[in-house]
């Protein structure tokens, strides 16, 4: 769905930055905890599961929010190939955010582990106890994590490219938003008028 405003909905912007922090933290926690048999291991593991489940819940809310509020159109002068890459990479980013916690949850289920999220709170298994399945999911969890991190870096580089080099308002649409036109006295009306009138911004 295309959005009339040149900016993402403020709620979507808030959830984007909240999740960005959580997802990057999770990737660092994840590679950190598998790297050590030291005292940090159980500490990181205890963070990894609740944050993972929180990301899963947030991304589900975010998908609904994104569908309800839409995205501002991409700059009209963006080459079609870049536009297609932008759209495809966002589908993959969403897919990764949904898949990673589910793979983790499924992997623990297949490993016969209790899926302990917090003190006294255990989630049910979503897959049967099966070591072969566990081994495959455990490997996929790592591979998708590394691809996800690469994708995030590409996303970051592209966002900075839009913000620092092209200066086309794409980065702004997910951060502070576009300034409202000073001529209008009623800002809410104005925003709709502006955006519908100049959807190419």
């Amino acid at each position, binding site marked *: 769905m295309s959005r009339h405003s040149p900016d993402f909905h403020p709620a979507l912007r808030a959830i984007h930055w909240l999740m960005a922090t959580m997802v990057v933290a999770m990737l660092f926690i994840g590679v950190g905890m598998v790297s050590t048999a030291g005292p940090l291991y159980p500490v990181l593991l205890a963070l990894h599961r609740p944050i993972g489940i929180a990301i899963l819940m947030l991304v589900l809310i975010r998908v609904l929010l994104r569908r309800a509020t839409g995205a501002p159109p991409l700059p009209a002068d963006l080459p079609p190939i870049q536009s297609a890459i932008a759209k495809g990479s966002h589908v993959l980013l969403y897919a990764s955010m949904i898949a990673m916690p589910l793979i983790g949850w499924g992997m623990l289920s297949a490993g016969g582990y*209790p899926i302990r999220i917090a003190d*006294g709170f255990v989630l049910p298994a979503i897959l049967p106890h099966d070591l072969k399945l566990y081994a495959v999911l455990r490997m996929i969890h790592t591979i998708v994590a590394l691809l996800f991190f690469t994708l995030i870096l590409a996303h970051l580089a592209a966002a900075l490219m839009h913000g620092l080099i092209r200066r086309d308002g794409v980065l702004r649409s997910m951060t502070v938003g576009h300034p409202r036109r000073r001529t209008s006295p009623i800002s809410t009306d104005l925003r709709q008028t502006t955006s519908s009138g100049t959807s190419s911004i």
Partner: protein
Amino acid sequence: MISAIVLLFVGGFAWAAGWIGERRISGGDVIAAIEYNGGSHPGYRRAHSKGLCFSGTFDSNGAGATLSSAEVLQRGSIPVIGRFSLAGGNPLATDGRNVFHSMALLLRTRDGQEWRMALDHTPIFPVADVASFVALQRATRPDPATGKPDPAVMKRFLAAHPEVKAFQEYMAKAVLPDSFANATYYSINAFRFTNAAKDAQLVRWQFVPEAPLAGLDKAHLDTLPRDALFKEMIARTARGPSRWRLQLVVANPGDVTDKATVAWAGPHRTIDAGTLVLSAVEPEETGACRDLNFDPTILPSGIGLSDDPLLAARSKTYASSFTRRAGENPGPSAAAGLAQENAR
């Protein structure tokens, strides 16, 4: 500018992953040390590979609730999955070795919470942390020529790790149980128990057998049939169940709670929390224990980790071992044939 920011993330990620920066000991490093010592046995647990599954119940008398709010310590009875094992990475090794006799347990309450344990028949562990454990595995590697560790290497190791002496002395003089059923199994590490009033205590525990302790002849261990202990346990269980009392031992002020190498001496407040009843044994092929990781840091609400760094090391190493064998085909267990033999 943009590439600098991206590189910063890549660098941070590489540091978090341990690819750059200070060298750290991973689960894989511990397994490499274990395999350096005892060889590679794919398809099995990297340590305590020779095992036998069992099942039964834990009947809690409710007395443990004074120490912990854990559901499992409230009055009631829950099913138990367990595993007996002998130390070492060789799944077909002989039972005639002066090594850890171990019992692993999984206690699951109706709310889905689990208490997993990996207990040994010694109250203490040879080393206190993961670096020392790796060094121990390397130093005690049997020389192919003599079957014993290289004395020069061993001497250097012991000089650097005087804490190992307590364990060596214990193993030299302690009775080596002649059955899995008559051994006392200890938690090794201390754990933090928190009761409903939020009072926290550091606790070690032990399962004390009903069967009277009798020892193997340590001077003639080499004459023991390869699977003697496993055979004995299968035959004993065919005659009737075995029982242990769970004793929770509360740390005194001044007790060392972050080093599994140090025993708690003298009288201690001890709470009898209930009875473990073992009613059936099964080989790993058909039992429920093989595909489980008895990670002692999997704990219910009301029981938490202490500051003992060995707990993290055990957890990570068990997880690495579990993940590796999950990707391999499980090999036959020593007890597979024994169970059939006994059934005839």
